Every structure is written in structure tokens, then in C-alpha cells.
């Protein structure tokens, strides 16, 4: 088992009242799954994804990731954990504008303290695999949205994570680009056994996954 959420609650105080963002979420994810999280706006999809990604905290409940209980870990260990095992893909790509494609890909490796020669090899490998060798010296602003998201996925994959979290990865893309990215996810999941959890609005994209989780007002339904 890759991760397990037990009775997760998350809330904010608004005008003296608790507004629940997540309410009693229980979830088990096995390695190799491809899960789609769906639900209307404000239902807590992204919050759940962030909690799984350890970018956000929760107020109650327990979270085990690879048999480590995340809720008891300090920030430093938590960040070690997620930089080791989790890759993120965002709707608006979040590439660093000041860095070239190649440098963007290299960055996660820098934070993992991987040696220079090995970094070079991994980046070259990834560029090759995604067919973007020719674009390695371009800056994000010089790429189309689809290409940027391709780089985004490549960046998420480069550190060889066990889990990819994708927050509406195709939200800013046209249908053809979406199709390509989803195919890529499917291939990664099937051929390389990478676990993927994606948040999506589209039934069509959700259909790529092996399981669908529906949320409404912070609750699983």
C-alpha cells in the first residue's frame, strides 16, 4: 500500500464558525493505481490533493505514506519524503520563467543533491524521452501551453517518483493537447507502474483512470 488517509478533517474559521474543507476523508491508494478525483468547484478536490502531497496540513485524522505517519513528521522530514517520492503537475504548469527548459528539469535534482554528471544524464534522458531535445534552451514563455505542460510532466517525473499528483493538468490546454497529456499519463501508469492521482473536471479525462473518487462539500460520496 502506498498511502492511507484515515478520518481526515480540515477546516477554516470563518466568522466564528468552522467551515469544513475536508470532512472525514478515508482513502487507501495502492501502488500502480490511477485515480481521478472529481467534483464541482469548491468541493475540496485540490485541498485533498495538496494534503496528499504534503503541501498542506490537516486538522484531524491520520495519514500514512509508505508506512510513515505523516501527521507526526517535522517539516524537514516531510519535505524529504515528498521530494523523494512525489512529483507534482499543475494546471498552470508553474515552470520557472527565468530558467530554460533544461534548467527547469534540472531543478528537482538540485534539491535532491544529485551530482552534476548524473544530473546531466538524467536531464538528457528526460529530454530525449519527451522528444523536447530541440527545445532545451528555450524559456517557458517561448513554448505553447501543451509543450509547457509536457515539460511540467517531465519535471515531475525526473526524480523518479512513486506518485504523481496532477491538479487539473489539462485545464489550460486544448483538446488535442489534453489528449496527448492524458495518453502520456496512461502510458506512464501502465508501462512504468507510476501511481497517479489527478484532479479533473472532465468525465473524459477521468475515464483514463482506474478509479474515480467523487467529492461534494469536502465529503467523499
Amino acid at each position: 500500500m502506498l498511502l492511507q488517509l484515515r478520518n481526515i478533517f480540515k477546516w477554516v474559521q470563518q466568522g466564528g464558525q468552522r467551515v469544513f474543507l475536508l470532512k472525514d476523508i478515508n482513502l487507501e491508494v495502492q501502488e500502480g493505481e490511477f485515480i481521478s478525483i472529481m467534483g464541482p468547484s469548491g468541493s475540496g478536490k485540490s485541498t485533498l490533493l495538496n494534503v496528499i502531497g504534503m503541501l498542506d496540513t490537516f486538522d484531524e485524522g491520520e495519514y500514512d505514506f509508505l508506512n510513515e505517519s505523516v501527521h507526526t513528521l517535522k517539516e524537514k522530514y516531510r519535505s524529504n519524503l515528498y521530494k523523494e517520492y512525489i512529483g507534482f503537475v499543475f494546471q498552470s504548469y508553474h515552470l520557472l520563467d527565468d530558467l530554460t527548459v533544461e534548467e527547469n528539469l534540472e531543478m528537482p535534482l538540485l534539491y535532491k543533491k544529485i551530482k552534476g554528471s548524473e544530473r546531466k544524464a538524467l536531464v538528457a534522458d528526460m529530454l530525449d524521452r519527451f522528444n523536447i531535445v530541440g527545445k532545451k534552451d528555450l524559456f517557458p514563455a517561448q513554448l505553447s501551453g501543451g509543450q509547457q505542460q509536457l515539460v511540467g510532466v517531465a519535471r515531475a517525473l525526473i526524480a523518479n517518483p512513486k506518485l504523481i499528483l496532477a491538479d487539473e493538468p489539462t485545464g489550460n490546454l486544448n483538446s488535442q493537447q489534453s489528449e496527448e497529456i492524458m495518453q502520456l499519463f496512461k502510458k506512464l501508469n501502465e508501462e512504468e507502474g507510476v501511481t497517479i492521482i489527478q484532479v479533473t473536471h472532465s468525465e473524459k479525462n477521468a475515464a483514463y483512470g482506474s478509479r474515480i473518487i467523487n467529492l461534494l462539500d469536502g465529503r467523499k460520496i
Partner: protein
Amino acid sequence: MIKNYFKIAWRNLLKDKVNTSLNITGLSVACAVAILLGMAAMFQLSYDGFHERGESIYKMVRTEQTPKGPKAGTVHAAPLAPTLEAEMAGVKHISRVVQDGTLALYNEKEINMDIVWVDQDFFSMFSFPVLHGNEKEPLADLNDVVLTEEGAQKLFGSTDVVGKTFNLMVNGEEKPFTVSAIAKDIVPQSNLDFQIAARFESHREYNEAKEQWDRQYHEVFVELKQGVLASSFEQSSKSFVDLYYGEGIERLKRDGATADENGRFINLELVPLKDVHFASFKNGTVEVSRSRPYLIFGVALLILFIACINYINMSIAKTAKRLKEIGMRKTLGAQKKQLFFQFWSESLFVFIISISIGVVLSLVFLNDFKSMFNTQISSSMFWSPMFLVGLLLSILTITVVVGGYPALLMSRLGTIQSLKGKLESSGNNQVRNVLMVFQFSIAIIMIVGTLVLWSQIDYMRNKDLGFDKEQVVSFPLNGKRNSHDMVDLLRDELSGNAEIVSVSGSDSNLGLGKDGSRSSSGIGFEYKGRIVMTNFLIVDHEYVQTLGLDMVAGRNFESAADSLGVVINESMAKELGEQDPLTSQLEIEDGIFYPVLGVVKDYNFKDLDRAIAPMTFFMSRQQDLTYGFVKVAPTNMANSFVALENAWKKLEPNADFLGSFLDENIDRTFRQEKTTAKMISSGSLLAIVLSCMGLFAMSLLIVQQRTKEIGVRKVIGASVGSITYILTKDFLKLVLIAFIIASPLSWYILKEWLQNYTYRIDLSVWFFIGAGAIAVVIAMLTIGTRTIRAARANPVKSLRTE
């Protein structure tokens, strides 16, 4: 990793060129100015610090409790030093010192040179290294002199002159002296400045004065034996004072003086050599104040501070643009520590560039700085270890604090928040506002300072001093001829010239002439059972009319034959306390009474930082005049000056003519004020420019951040004016708060400063209102350009960027 940081830093800097160049310009200019000012202050503080035995050398000061309050004097009687050496334990070396100008003659040459008349111990005490000649005892013989290299070059044209003989004018006669040694040139930061050092016993007054305890005309420096404390020396000097100054103490008691807290009337005090440059005796006590160099240091720090505030504010404001990067980096596993180091190293990068430019700038502008602020700093000071250590320390502090604070803020941001691009900014704005208020307070204080300083200088320049300064030329009588003869000869020579009104002379200059020397003398005598003290001026009979002084009673000297009477000023008349001062007879020499012929209106014969003191004019051909005074007609003053110079050249072909109009001389006396004023005004200019640069950059960023708001407001129907008002209001509020803080502070500081001047301007509110207005107007102009442009922009465009 570091390579990556620098890459990002570099690209970030390039991307925001306006901001970057504002930051780097501001920091490097501030750095350059701070270095220069720091060096100027260091130079001041290093005065007399080069003497190896300086720690145990002291200048001797005598303080007296007179009926009118305490008085302190640095001049002493000739027998004091030898008696002290003979009778007091703890004296290692002692030397009497008279600093003087003298005429040196060698072959055909007649040159005015700076001379010190000193005792044999002089060269053992002070570190004026002897290059060749008699190193051990350079002044062993009464006729021995030591020349500095500069002095030897001037007189002989060579420094290889040990053993050669030349003449000095002493008491109107040429006396031969032999060069026993050549010393290294005197460094600029020495208070003892000379080209010739000769034996004290050869000084013109020595033969008459050597036994007299009441004739004080020279300074005394003493070096104490190792382990002897100045305080214990002062303590044990008490019985010595009682013994040798007993008569004086009795007289002070009789005249009604009150003893000091220790029950003493006369004390000998020691001022450490390193304090001498900063000591003043104005209020009758020894006061050591290094406030001027510290003020300069302060200005340097404030300017650096302002530039640093700019940097902090801009960095914090720029955080908004980098939120996404911060969030993304955190998502990729960056820890706080790593983010902090990244942003800090970016700052470090900017600082290294700015400081390097600053150092280069300061070295490039060193010479301009030197001449503008007439300081003697040199680039070698820059490389002195103490300065470098100080510089490195301040750079380190700045980079840690100024670079560290924004970096800390950035590294602390939450991941999700920064990814979403949201920034709770209220806390940061508070810091920013406080810093900006601080910045503008400094600028306003400096502006007020500038305005007040220049007004005071202007006031002193234009004040009616009670004598005619525009039409009178003064010149040192530095020739070979007897000074009285010289004045008479000049008078004859110029008598045919209708544009020369009158010619006279005295033994002291007014203001500071081109020769740069000043002196004053005073006497005290018994008058009706008490001591009366007065300044004492040897004059020629045409002195009063030449200077255009007004007579208020009696008559002026009419001819050289009036030398049996004196003319006094109003303050002296008051001091005498007679109903009719013209009835007084003054016992200036023992047993000889001089009637008061007339009273002149008070005039400022000393600088304007002093009140007018009693003055007595005395005519005596026995005592030399040292300055000539010539009054010229108001027309063709330049021609008259040339005529005077020609007459001089004819009579004294070998001596330089160093004449100058008295108003120039007066100007020269507040050279220090002018330098300070120049420094403060350039400082305040820089402060306001830097503050405005910060303000400009801030307004740029704020306008960018509020683009959406501006768009929305316009769509709803706000006018350009109202939007400009909204954007400007916040900043103006800060400037106004700064004004409220700065006004009382600057009022207090300047009030204290003006206390130094007996004649001073009033601190009117207009100085403060003016400074505030200047700050507000400049701030408005700075923000205005950006805000109006933003307010006029098409709202559709600004809304689309969201």
C-alpha cells in the same frame, strides 16, 4: 546549486532593469560617499596619532578661577617647564613650544617659513624622524636647527645640507643657525607643523622672559615616565602650583574669585596628546569633543542606511513577483534554509557589485572630494588595516541584515499561498512604512540642517562687525625691515595715490589671512586694587581710521607722539567701571600710568563664536607690528590693490606680498563651518535623492500591484484625479509623519549647535516648514509621474492582465 542561484539572480536582475539599476546606483553611490566621508572622519580622528610615545605625552593647560568665572589657557611662562622638570617626579621629557612664522635668509633668498621654537627634548618626545644628521641630539647646540625635507628644499634647493649655515631674523637682526639634521616632512594630521625647528632659547622673547612667571607666551608638552598617571601628576602638582603661583592665587582671592569644588584657584591640567586636536577652552574648562568627526561618520552611516532601506523595501515589494517561484521551489523539495540562502545570495551578489563600484567611485572622486571639502585624506588611508577592517565589518553587517531580512521573509512564506500568488502583506507594509518614515525623517533633518547652517554662515558673512572689511587690505609684515619703519615707508610711498585712504599696522590680523596664522595677546594689570584683564593690541596711530572704527568718547591717537596714552573699547570701559573712562590711568608697565585717550565702539576683533571682550590699543615702537592694514577708496579697488603690491615689492623686493581684503579673511575663518555645511548639504541632497529613488521604485511596484484595483475603479467611474489622489495619499502620509518626527529632533540638534555661536540666527519655524515643503514637493513629483500614468491607462488593458 550555487551556480543555479547565481543564474537565477542574474536573470532576475536583468529582467527588472529599472529596479536593478536604481538599486545598484543607490547602493554604490551611497557606498562611495560613505567611504569618502568615513575616510574624512578617520583622518580627523587620527590627528596626532602617529607619535609613538603619544600615549604618555600631554599638553599642559592652566585653569584659573577668576572673579568672572573659570579661564583656561595653554600658554605658559618660560620658567615653568625647567622648574617642573627639576622639581616634579614623573617627568620624562618636557618641551616648551612656540609655533611661529619667521624670515629665513640664505644667500639672496628671503623666505617666510613655519618654525617651532622648542627645547632639546622635543625630538625625543615626538615622532618626527630624523633622516640624516645628528639623530641622537639634533638640537644639542643653541644654534642648531632641524629642517624638514620640504624646508631644506625651499631654502637650499637640496636636502643634503647638514652642517650648512643660514640666518633667521630674530628681533630685527639676522642671526646665524646651523643645520644639524634633516627630518622627514610633517604629515598632514599633525597639529605641530613646521619647516624649521630651533632652540627655544633663541626665540626673540626668551632673554627678557626667562625669569618671569607672569609673562606667558608658549605651550608646554610633557612626557610622563612609564606608569605615571596624568591624574596623579596633576594631583602632585598642587603644592608646586601653590609655591610658584602663590601671588596669583592671593590676587584672585582678593578680587573675589570663588574656588573650584576642590578649593583651588589655579590648577595645572594635562590634556592627552590625542585629545589636543579636539580640545577647546572656550568656557574656561578643558572640553574634549570629537563631535565633528562623529557627525561626519553619522552622515555617512545615515546615507548608507537610506540606501539599505531602499534595498530592503524594494526586495520585499518584489517578493510578490516571485511568489510562484517560491511556491514551486518548495513543492520541489526546497527547505526554508535553502530558499533563504538563495535569496540571500542574490542580495550578496547585488552588494558585491555595488560595493565594488562604490570603492572604484570613491577612489576616482578622491581628489575632487579632497579639494571640495579641503581634507587631506589620501588613498593610502583606504588601505590602512583599521579602515579595511571597519569597511569589511560594515559590509558584512549590511549584507547579513539588509540581504537577510527580505530573504528570511521570503523563505517563510507558505507553499500553497505562494503558489496561489497570495501574500498577506499587512505586516510587511508596516515594516516598509516604518522604514520609509525613518528615511524621510533623516532627509528632512538633513535639509533643515543645511538650511540653518547656510543661513548662519550667511549671517556671519554679512554681519556688521563694526569695522570696514570691504575696503581694507591686510598683509603680514614679513620682510626684513623693521615693521614700524615699513608702515611709515609704505605710507610715504602711497601718499601720492588718491585711492589709498590710509595706512596702518598692528600686531594681529583680523580674520585669517593668506599666511594662515592667527595670534592674540592679552595683559592683566592692577587697577584700583583688583586685576583687570584685557586683550592687547600694538597699533600704529592710524589704526582706528584705517579700520573705520567709530569713536564714542575722547579722541583717537593723533600722531606717533601719542604713545603715552591708550585707546580702549567699550567693553574695556565697562570693565574699568568708571563714570568717565577718560579719567582712568592704566598701569600697563610697572610704575608707568597710561591715560585713556578715547573709547572706540565695540567691534568683533575675534570670531563670531565669541562675545566682544575688553580691548586696549597701545602704541609702542619697541614691540613689532606683524600686519599692515591699508584702506582703499571704494572705486577701483583692484587697481589700488596692485598699487599697494607694487609699493611693497619696491620696499621689500625679496619678501612675498600676502595681502588680502578683510572680508576674504573673515570668510576664511569659517572655512570649517563651510566645509561642514558643504558636507551636510551634499549629504542631504544625496539623502533626498536616494529616498526619492526608493520612493520611485516603490511607487512603480505599488502601481503594478494595484493595476487591477485601478482598472476596476476606473470602470466604475473614478476620475484620473481621484485615482492619483488614492495612490499618492499613502506615501504623502508617510512623508508627513516623517516631518512630524523630524521637526522637533532637528530643532533640538540645531539649537544645540547654534549655542556655539555668540552671534547667531533665530531658529524660525520657516526653516522647518521649508524643509517639510521641499520633502513633500519632491516626493509628490517622484510619485506623481508614475501614478498619473497609471491612472490614465486604459482600464480594459489593466483588467485583462489578471
